[in-house]
């Protein structure tokens, strides 16, 4: 079963081509690292998958639906690269609203919020306004909302941004737990070592084009690290 798909997706902004004929199929239960240098089109790909933008050509499918259809985003957790939290909302109020929008009601909502607070280690700060939190705590809040209700699909854009080493280790643990319960993951990241630890597949973008994709051991040659493979694939010949 396919969890998400980009079928020949091209995205142009005026004369600039952000993505060119991208074919990417992520089967349910896979953990895919979406890699590429700055401006390679990783965030654009996630935007197309979430219905924030339409492909200029080709198509995006999320859970078999057009991402513009709200049903496509049922059971999806998303952590954006630039997390802008509503400063004056309380942390618990923020998570409760997210849980409501995710379709959780009553006790299920309360349980999901408390579980997310507990998992991400921010329960003690639940009554505070989001504007007063540090960058690292903000990123934990981002994870908490993404993990609410144990979504079946997680789209994480640079998930370890702003986290200290302990936070990075925790994030690795949250991702591993999501994998263990069978969630599909698409992780856009610059941190190759994290991708190597958390993902079993990679897709490498360069200048809007897919230059390699597949299981980690198929993309990385014997004796290479993922970093070596990455440099080989995105460096000029």
């Amino acid at each position: 079963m396919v969890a998400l798909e980009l079928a020949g997706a091209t995205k142009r902004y005026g004369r600039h081509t952000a993505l060119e004929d991208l074919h990417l199929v992520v089967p349910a239960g896979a953990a895919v690292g979406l890699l590429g240098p700055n401006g390679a089109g990783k965030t654009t790909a996630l935007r197309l998958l979430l219905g924030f933008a339409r492909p200029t050509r080709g198509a995006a499918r999320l859970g078999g639906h057009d991402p513009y259809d709200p049903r496509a985003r049922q059971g999806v957790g998303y952590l954006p690269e630039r997390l802008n939290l509503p400063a004056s909302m309380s942390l618990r109020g923020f998570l409760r609203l997210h849980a409501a929008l995710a379709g959780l009601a009553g006790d299920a909502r309360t349980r999901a919020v408390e579980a997310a607070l507990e998992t991400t280690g921010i329960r003690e700060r639940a009554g505070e306004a989001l504007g007063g939190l540090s960058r690292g705590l903000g990123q934990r809040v981002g994870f908490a909302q993404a993990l609410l209700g144990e979504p079946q699909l997680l789209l994480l854009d640079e998930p370890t941004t702003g986290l200290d080493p302990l936070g990075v280790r925790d994030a690795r643990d949250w991702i591993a737990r999501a994998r263990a319960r069978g969630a599909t993951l698409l992780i856009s990241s610059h941190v190759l070592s994290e991708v190597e630890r958390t993902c079993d597949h990679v897709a490498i973008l360069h200048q809007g084009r897919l230059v390699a994709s597949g299981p980690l051991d198929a993309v990385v040659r014997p004796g290479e690290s993922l970093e070596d493979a990455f440099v080989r694939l995105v460096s000029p010949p």
Partner: protein
Amino acid sequence: MLAPLAAEALRDALRRRLALVVAGVALLGVASAESCTAFGPGTWVVDGQSVDPELVAAWLAPLLFGFEILLFVVLAGLLAADHLARPLAEGSALLWLARPVGRGAYALARLAGALGVAYAAGAVLLGGTAVLLVGRHDLAAGPAVVGALAGALGAAGVAGLAMSASLWLGRVAVVTLVGTLVPLVALINTLRAAGARLDGFLGLLDRGAPPLGRAILAAVAPWNPHVSDLGAEAPRLLAVLAAWALAGGALLVLSFRRVELPR
């Protein structure tokens, strides 16, 4: 989905400094009304003759209440001018829109949030003024109710149009448009009602824009026996304003579906 998002949009609108300004303007408006309506027999004297306070009230009430309805409509437009554009520009909207939330539901929730604050301010402004006019000068309450309804419908229409415009224009441009076009339309509607011939752009605006001025005039006209016949048009004009309110909401939903995020 709409209700929790609208509640958050309302809370967000209440937390803005602009909400404080709007509340201040509303209270100032009521204070002005209190001052303007504090007259009685002998207060107005022309050529040594005391002017009948009923006559003064018959002219003052439509002018004062009409101006305050217009102020209420402008405030609604100003509140809507960036209540959707701001979370889009900041990126905080992306987290909500990554949920199974339709674009239309999100946009209408933001509109409802802005209108919630505007209606609260309008209730204070128009309610306070109506109580003073009706209580002090024994005027009928009906025109105040119809006028408030015209204001509410006009505010919804203008807010919807302003929020739609904010998806394509900057805040300063939208605020300028609201601050100039709403009073201009009201003015030319009034001139037209007074028998002025309007051609060109002004004529187009009179015929093509929401009939804010005409609806306000029709609503408050029964307070003045000299122009009370204008009141007959009120039901039709309210229906037109209701259609504009629906059109503003529909335009907002359609526009927002076309917008690519983040902006």
